[in-house]
């Protein structure tokens, strides 16, 4: 995490975790979700979707904090995030889904 100093209570803080779902074929490849994700969870995929754009893909699923910024900035209703169940152990990576649907 990019802290300018390590918070004293870092061990006590429970950071929420999110699961990102991407509707790949709705995407128009603006890249806003990728650029403005505060945890750099997303990356531009090298593949094309049905519309011929490069959609985002999840590269750091574990780091998603469910802030939902990708969801609210997306002009295409193509990505959203939900909270990962709190009892899933921290060491298990959150699963992320890419959905084929227009």
């Amino acid at each position: 995490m990019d802290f300018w100093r390590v918070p004293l209570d870092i061990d006590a803080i429970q950071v929420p975790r999110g699961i990102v779902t991407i509707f790949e074929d709705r995407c128009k490849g603006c890249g806003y979700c990728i650029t403005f994700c505060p945890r750099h969870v997303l990356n531009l995929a090298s593949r094309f979707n049905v519309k011929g754009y490069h959609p985002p893909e999840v590269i750091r699923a574990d780091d998603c904090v469910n802030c939902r910024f990708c969801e609210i900035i997306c002009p295409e209703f193509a990505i959203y995030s939900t909270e990962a169940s709190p009892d899933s152990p921290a060491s298990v990576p959150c699963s992320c889904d890419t959905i084929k649907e227009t």
Partner: protein
Amino acid sequence: MADHLKKAGNKQVHPLDDMVRRDRMPHIWCPGCGIGTVFSACLTAIKSSGIDLDKVVMVSGIGCSGRAAGYTNLDSFHTTHGRAIPFATGVKLANPELKVIVFSGDGDLFAIGGNHFIHAARRNIDITVVCVNNLNYGMTGGQAAATTPEGSLTTTTPLGNPERPFNLPLLAYAAGAAYVARWTMLHIQDLTESIKEAMVKPGFAFIEALSPCPVNYGRRNKEKPLDTLTMYRDKTIIKNGASPLELDVDSRKSIILGKFVDIQKPTFFELYEKIYRPAE
């Protein structure tokens, strides 16, 4: 596959899919256009306001921004160019129970529709007006608008715009609006909160949402979509309660965002009832 998807029986549901006419998707807005983000903020605001969705009406004029009314599942009207506000006024006065939101562009609301705007604000008609300000006429090919900053390049000002643009919050304030705010499409949470606040507040509310039009405005002014968003992040100052006089949009200065006006005063309908239908 995650549990929430299995539960939905594999039928994918984006949290806003119920507010959108999926059969009309994909929308016409270009890659990197900010209208979709402002539209989505609007839908979130309406959904989370607690207002009965059967009592909400969205009205748009003509333009790329004006397409919004046709994309929502709410009752909506896509009116003629510049006439979203008079149409919304009629809806509100015919059925004052309805919550009426106008979603349209800067050209539609402030060039051809400018007179309607000032008079609706003066009368304090109880509607909420969200203006997607992309600094030009996007739909028709990027002509200069009443909001185009001085010096900007457009199809009709190839050497730079010699005109000064409207300061929209000042115009709304001077005309009598009860609520005035300005955000950009990058300040999504603030924008959403403002729209929600404006929807539940009685009186004429105006919210300006600065938004990129990369295809027409951006391209001519050497701004890639991400450059515009970076500018929204780095060259804006949030100053709630700022004097409307200092809110001009000028590329040489930072743009001031925030809520500038939030006052209580009788609406047109209240005054009309008092005078023409006084209680016995």
